[in-house]
């Protein structure tokens, strides 16, 4: 179903939902994250292996009450200051954490996509994580008696991902680092996919990562919708933005005025990017 991003977020992301915006450095759905902020969604449980800047923004704007994750930082730069402020000082509201390792998260997402109640892994050996996360348990192999870790399936109410292309019927093609995106979509009750472009024919290579239209909720064309993350074949990662975010996010007021100017006062992601370009010109 082709929808404008604004409509897709309005209809499919509801207050209190479990929401996964996935992407492992590549194809992070920033435009969709901004739209969630603009529409003032609240009480979300955010899920993601690698919460980064867009989750820092969502958390700093008070959209989230809980985070299910395995690594939360600004890769190569440092901390997520808004995430830390929420966890360490409860600002703008407390944030509950359910914390896994990457291997645990992928097992949980794959179980979700597979309609299994749990996933198993040889994991968490000797780690303190199971002490603080009741969703890490242990089972015995019925053949060898070996003890293995188990995690419950993740089933987001809605998963949002960004991809390179969709065709007019809504079939989606992505390539490059595809992370956990397919599993996150298949594990979810609803899904939104933003794409760089809508084309007549996908011309997918054999065995490409394709999500057939009938497993995708809404498809929205948002050119550049992964910025400052990247879309292989379209544009590179804007590392300067990630570095600058460290300064923007370090201070509550600086963060709030940045969000007000760049997100709340813009109509959509094109508007956001125009404001950013102006800032660069005036710099």
């Amino acid at each position: 179903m082709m929808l404008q991003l604004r409509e897709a977020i309005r209809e499919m992301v509801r207050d209190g939902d479990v929401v996964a915006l996935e992407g492992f450095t590549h194809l992070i759905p920033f435009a969709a994250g901004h739209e969630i902020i603009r529409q003032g969604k609240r009480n979300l449980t955010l899920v993601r292996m690698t919460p980064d800047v867009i989750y820092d923004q969502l958390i700093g704007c008070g959209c989230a009450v809980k985070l299910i994750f395995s690594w939360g930082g600004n890769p190569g730069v440092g901390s997520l200051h808004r995430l830390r402020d929420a966890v360490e000082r409860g600002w703008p509201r407390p944030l509950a954490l359910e914390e896994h390792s990457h291997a645990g998260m992928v097992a949980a997402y794959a179980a979700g996509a597979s309609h299994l109640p749990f996933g198993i892994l040889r994991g968490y050996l000797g780690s303190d994580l199971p002490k603080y996360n009741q969703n890490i348990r242990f089972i015995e192999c019925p053949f060898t008696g070996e003890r293995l870790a188990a995690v419950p399936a993740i089933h987001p109410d809605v998963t949002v991902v960004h991809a390179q292309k969709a065709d007019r019927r809504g079939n989606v093609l992505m390539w490059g680092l595809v992370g956990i995106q397919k599993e996150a979509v298949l594990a979810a009750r609803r899904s939104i996919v933003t794409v760089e472009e809508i084309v007549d024919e996908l011309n997918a290579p054999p065995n490409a990562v394709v999500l057939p239209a009938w497993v995708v909720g809404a498809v929205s064309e948002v050119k550049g919708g992964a910025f400052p993350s990247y879309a292989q074949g379209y544009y590179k990662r804007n590392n300067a933005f990630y570095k600058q975010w460290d300064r923007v996010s370090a201070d509550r007021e600086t963060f709030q005025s940045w969000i007000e100017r760049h997100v709340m006062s813009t109509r959509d992601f094109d508007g956001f990017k125009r404001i950013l370009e102006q800032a660069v010109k005036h710099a």
Partner: protein
Amino acid sequence: MPDTAYTADEMMTVAAARMLRNGAVCFVGIGLPSAAANLARLTHAPGVVLIYESGTIGSKPDVLPLSIGDGELAETADAVVSTVEIFSYWLQGGRVDVGFLGAAQIDRFANINTTVIGDYKSPAARLPGAGGAPEIAASSGEVLITLRQNKRSFVEKLDFVTSCGHLSGGTSREQLRFPGRGPAAVITDLGILIPDSVTKELTLTSIHHGISVECVLEATGWPLKVSPHLQTSAPPSAEELSALRNLQGIPNAG
């Protein structure tokens, strides 16, 4: 700056790179390890296979990526797979010879904390968390760890054990039947620490050129054992420095 001048971080990265043997399959953790692993590939270990948790197998970047998911890693890889597959078929599958990890805190048995400083429920400082490290530490054939050495990072007791080294030492790791043998070396900006073959306690076996033993002891939060056969790491060669700076996009002097 003359060719022979180098920073402590450069020495650390060069010393870490030297530990990676040619032909090893190396799972590259987030942070400092990526520079060391790629430096090894571009100097003495051209046959090393670098696996990143973002899903790339055999990445050969010319320029060091800021993150472990930059496009360069995928474009230069032999294969790019989902993160499910990377963790299940490749890491857990037992195909990794060396796990290369960073850390925020480490203890004398090379257990690692990357989760939290202070109490978990009301932390003094929230760190990024586990990422791939717990299973990299458990499943890789052996583990190399690289981090800067000081009293805040080398601690008597970890606030949180994110990823296991040699647990409480001795045979305690063996008893838990981890698939991998655990940490083989910790490479810092001051020297190299190797677990004792019996007690598994980290022992200073090498100090970097120009660093004193006292300086290392001073930077360690427990009474650090020093090997009777203490060696001194050779300073970075001109070739190593040049390769590292090219990788980091830093113009070389001269």
